[in-house]
């Protein structure tokens, strides 16, 4: 029975991500990249072990990260509650090895480390359970 619930959850997560994706597109069209990033980070599925869900959400987050032009204004608008999860996605971005992605992630990483401190990086690296 538990398995059935899980299956529903996967579907639900994927559906939610699709929904998020549409919302992000519309936010980007309105030139609200920070709002888009927040939306992308919200409700990301770190606890699930399902890679499909994680990848799907990463694609959405990546879209939002790449749309960020002004990193300084990003952090004046981004609340601290997003720091830890954003850091995790930055490291995922860096692990792709894709040049533009890495450039962007490093730019944000610098500012984020200033804001959130080394503890944020440690939590991100040390956390083996809530992965993105």
């Amino acid at each position, binding site marked *: 029975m538990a398995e059935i619930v899980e299956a529903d959850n*996967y579907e639900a997560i994927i559906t939610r991500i699709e929904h998020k994706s549409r919302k992000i*597109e519309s936010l980007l069209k309105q030139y609200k990249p920070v709002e888009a990033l927040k939306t992308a980070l919200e409700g990301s599925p770190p606890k699930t072990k399902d890679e*499909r869900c994680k990848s799907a959400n990463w*694609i959405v987050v990546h879209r939002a990260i790449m749309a960020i032009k002004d990193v300084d204004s990003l952090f004046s608008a981004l609340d601290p509650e997003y720091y830890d999860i954003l850091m995790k996605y930055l490291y995922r971005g860096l692990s792709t090895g894709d040049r533009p*992605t890495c450039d962007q992630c490093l730019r944000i990483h610098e500012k984020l480390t200033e804001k959130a401190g080394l503890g944020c990086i440690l939590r991100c690296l*040390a*956390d*083996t359970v809530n992965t993105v």
Partner: protein
Amino acid sequence: MAATSVHKFAQCITCHAWSPDLSMIVLCPNNSEVHIYKLSEDKWERVHVLQKHDQIVSGIDWSYRSNKIVTVSHDRNSYVWNQEATGWVPTLVILRLNRAALCVQWSPKENKFAVGSGAKTVCICYYEQENNWWVSKLIRKRHDSSVTSIAWHPNNILLATTSTDGKCRVFSTFIKGVDAKDSGNSADTRFGEQIVQLDLCFCWAFGVRWSPSGNTLAYVAQPGALSSRYALGRGRAGPHGSTLRYWVLDDLSGHNSMIYFVDEVGPSAAAQSVAIRDLPLRDVLFLSERMVVGVGFDCNPMVFVADESGLWSFLRFLDERKAASSSAKYGSQFSEAFEKFYGQSKFSASNNVEQSRGAHDNFNIVQQEEMQIERDEASIPVEPITEFEPLETKSSHEQNNELLPLEQNDDLLMSEPEQNNALLPSEPDQNNELFPSEPEQKKELLPSEPELKKELLPYELAQKNELLPFEPEQKKELLPSEPEQKNELFPSEPEQNNELLPSEPEQKNELRPSESEQNGWLPSESEQQIGSI
């Protein structure tokens, strides 16, 4: 606050304890000896050297009332030292361990002491008159790894332990014939019975402490995952029929820069974790019911306070913050770190290196010195001996008032108002950044069932993966927003990621405990080095 005094006793100190009147200090200078120093005329003088152990002494405790010193060592032995006319005389303790002893603490009544060990056991030791030695009863098969720290509940029965298996546990240590039947209602629990197990982090747990009342428990965890925090079920009946509350300071002793608090909340116990901006903590100390000091890899004690509602938050650093800003900061940090490694690898570290590290790196007793003194509020026998000038910092006085809402606690932390002001150079912005996030965290914490549910997930998920092999492709096509380029990019990532990220930390976690078992646990030199970085 700068350290009130810095005195260098040894290159490295593995453990220490204060005498009851705070006039003496007993420490292990990273070898098999135990040195006792006495403060006389503003100078610390070595008055005794206790030689009985064969290997590094890993734990020392000095009993307050009976004036006995207990030492434990990696040589698997423990001695209780009594002061007699001829000096300090050791009494053997029969520990029956096959791995190193790691930590020791006298019980509040001082008729027992507990020893944590690398043998996954805790020894509860008590005196046997007829043989004139101390015997031990073992709590076996409860821990999955080394016991890193222990703490006695004020009721003399309950013992909290932390272990490198990432868990914090509470046991009953009731021993017939040693403990009176009427000591609290916990007397009906049998020896070694596990009362609570806290499973809040997936990393090494350290530095467990009870609050003075025994209502709150704090501990920290070494690098691991902060992840699963969940509300605790209610514990067994506590001292006065109340339920036990625990605050877990995750990375209050964790390498994940989190601190967990568990509080005795009656019907709905809740754990709270506080994310720390900086490096993980290694140990904690309750100054009062609502104030905790944590020390760790930042070489700068952190103060945490609980507000009226019991919400814990970071208050500030105790030492002054290294003044640095933005870009210049990182460069200097690297060179500083480099310098530290260099200084340590060459053991003949010159004075220059020492000074550049700042007071707390080479000697962290000072912090505790302050705390203990202030806690006792006794007349302070320890007058500062300044080898290094305390650094001076400038900061505005106005900030101070805003920052310290807990006026009543001020006197706990510092005696001189001027120092107080100098304390807070860079805090304001930090606080602002940190505090807003904490309420949210707590909200996440409170609902207990969801968390538990998540705990269950991983296993089922794994099965699920096998059941649904075809879905992934479909799903990716469904996502409308993705440009083609990206689709090419990403399919390869998940695999990379899977292999790269999760495996490293796990290896780490698995490797370390097993290594340590081989070695009889805690290679204390390297530990120390890590600690002082």
